[in-house]
């Protein structure tokens, strides 16, 4: 198991290297001269040249790339055009907010959506199922920025129950999390329903029924864990889309997170901030995917034994 985890962690290296290459290409082709962006308009030609030399912009492209990689490995993600501060520290101080937003949304979505999806599948074609299907369809279709604005309109402006903007208090998390949550619930419930429909058609469910097992036990003991396998597998992509959604939702609710940082960077053409943000988000996604993969092996014994073969006695096929 440890071996498997180490293998997965090592696997981040090529992926992140690929990301860095992509971001570097982005950097190389982005319009605008970083020197002009970083220095005040009154800067002399000489100081510009000095900065250019200092940033290594006169080096051949391959050297620039090497320096960039070394820089990223040392945590140097560049300097924000806007604040002239290192991007890494700016991202680092915003990251916890984004993680709170995404992880809470994910957690709540899983808790609500998985049972909903299973319920719908067990009562397939009933009124309950139809309601859940319709809800998931609309939940997945409503653009999250519109939903966010509507929530502000109803709960903050019209009813005045909740703050319309993030202000650091616990209660001001409710609207941003809800705005990002609805889509996630919809997608997860849909996936859970489809998976459950697949599972309850399997022969082993029939075997369990043929044992005289109660229908409830059949669902929870036999079907549930098998449904969980694909649900867990989809957590990685669910979190990816939640992080994507946080770009917009954080902006609307003024949550000081990486999402807002990136979307502000986009509107201000603050490229180093955008590039740094992409690297951090990508790393986050990779780490989450490792966690998901490890969880996956815990739930699915078929995978566990594959990866643990070396530590366990070999399976003898007697027949």
């Amino acid at each position, binding site marked *: 198991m440890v071996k498997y985890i180490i293998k997965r962690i090592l696997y981040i290296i090529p992926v992140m290297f690929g990301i860095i290459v992509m971001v570097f290409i982005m950097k190389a082709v*982005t319009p605008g001269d970083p020197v002009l962006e970083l220095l005040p308009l009154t800067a002399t030609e000489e100081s510009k040249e000095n900065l250019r030399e200092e940033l290594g912009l006169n080096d051949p492209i391959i050297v620039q790339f090497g320096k960039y990689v070394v820089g990223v490995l040392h945590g140097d993600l560049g300097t924000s055009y806007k604040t002239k501060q290192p991007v890494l520290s700016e991202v680092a101080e915003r990251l916890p907010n984004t993680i709170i937003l995404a992880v809470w949304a994910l957690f709540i979505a899983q808790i609500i959506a998985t049972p909903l999806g299973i319920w719908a599948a067990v009562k397939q074609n009933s009124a309950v199922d139809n309601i859940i299907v319709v809800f998931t369809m*609309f939940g997945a*279709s409503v653009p999250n*920025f519109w939903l966010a604005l509507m929530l502000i309109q109803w709960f903050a402006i019209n009813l005045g129950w909740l703050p319309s903007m993030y202000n650091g208090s616990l209660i001001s998390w409710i609207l941003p999390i809800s705005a990002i949550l609805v889509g996630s619930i919809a997608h997860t419930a849909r996936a859970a329903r489809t998976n459950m429909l697949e599972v309850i058609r399997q022969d082993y469910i029939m075997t369990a029924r043929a044992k005289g097992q109660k229908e409830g036990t059949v669902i929870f003991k036999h079907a549930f864990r098998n449904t969980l396998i694909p649900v867990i597998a989809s957590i990685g992509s669910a979190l*990816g889309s939640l992080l994507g959604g946080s*770009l917009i939702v954080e902006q609307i609710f003024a949550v000081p997170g990486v999402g807002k940082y*990136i979307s502000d960077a986009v509107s201000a053409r603050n490229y180093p901030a955008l590039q740094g*943000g992409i690297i951090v988000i990508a790393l986050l*996604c990779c780490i989450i995917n490792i966690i998901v993969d490890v969880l996956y092996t815990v739930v699915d014994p078929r995978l566990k034994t594959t990866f643990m073969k070396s530590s366990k006695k070999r399976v003898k096929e007697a027949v």
Partner: protein
Amino acid sequence: MSKITTPAMVKLNKKTKGRHKETGNTPMQEGLKRLRKNKTAMAGMIIILFLIIIAIFAPLIAPYGYQEQSYTEVRLGPSLQHLFGTDHLGRDIFSRCVYGTRYSLPIGLICTLLGLVIGGGLGLVAAYFGGRTDNIIMRIIDIIQAIPSILLCIALVAILGNGMWQLVVAITAGTIQGMTKNVRAAVFMVRNNEYVNSSKSIGVSDFQIMIRHLVPNAVGIIVINAVGVVATSILTISSLSYLGVGLVAPTPEWGAILAEGKQYMAVAPHMVYFPGLMIAITVVAFYLFGNGLRDALDPRLK
């Protein structure tokens, strides 16, 4: 048992029901037949066709031009004159939403098609050849996949600049990884079938096998996924416009109309309601269609 019926009676009863079934249809034809009977799919398709008609005849349908300003009619609520009200420049929001169908819909469809050709091609090649080819393609996809697709789109538009073709490139790039994975999975399921092996053994070329055997057999799953991709692409386009990249104001793209309206939301909420509803309806239509399509082509799950 009280209600014994003789088998002859039972048979006679059913004879009169007159359900005759022609045989010899391909699975695809069977699927299309089921699709025509599927209410959800048909509802989705009618809305989509309706939106396409609106897009084609936009100048005839829209009562005003999408840039026509009227400083005497600023931020009016919905009325008979202005079905969706007017915005801060006195433009008719209904007309702007009507013209909006000319952006999201075609861009969403074109990007999905492009994504299908590129991503689908990659997935097909990866699944068919397997081994090293598969490894290389999938590792590249892994890299792209590590970035949430909307962030990838935003980053690309930020570099390329605003505009139609830039947006198309960005959205297409965002669809490729999903398409590749789906097509690869679909092709994997059919590529080891005996008919593929037998085609190989009689010397059919790889390209022929892919086109003649693999694509037709994986087409159901691919089409179902593609419909879903259209829906997410439309959502992404409007999200980008909302953030002020891609198609920006004064283009009457729904997300852009909404972005313009949001600062007036407290006083003129209709400026936000209607463009958002347009997006939601369009996306729902594609999901409805996709759901119906899945039920029709994959009757197991129904």
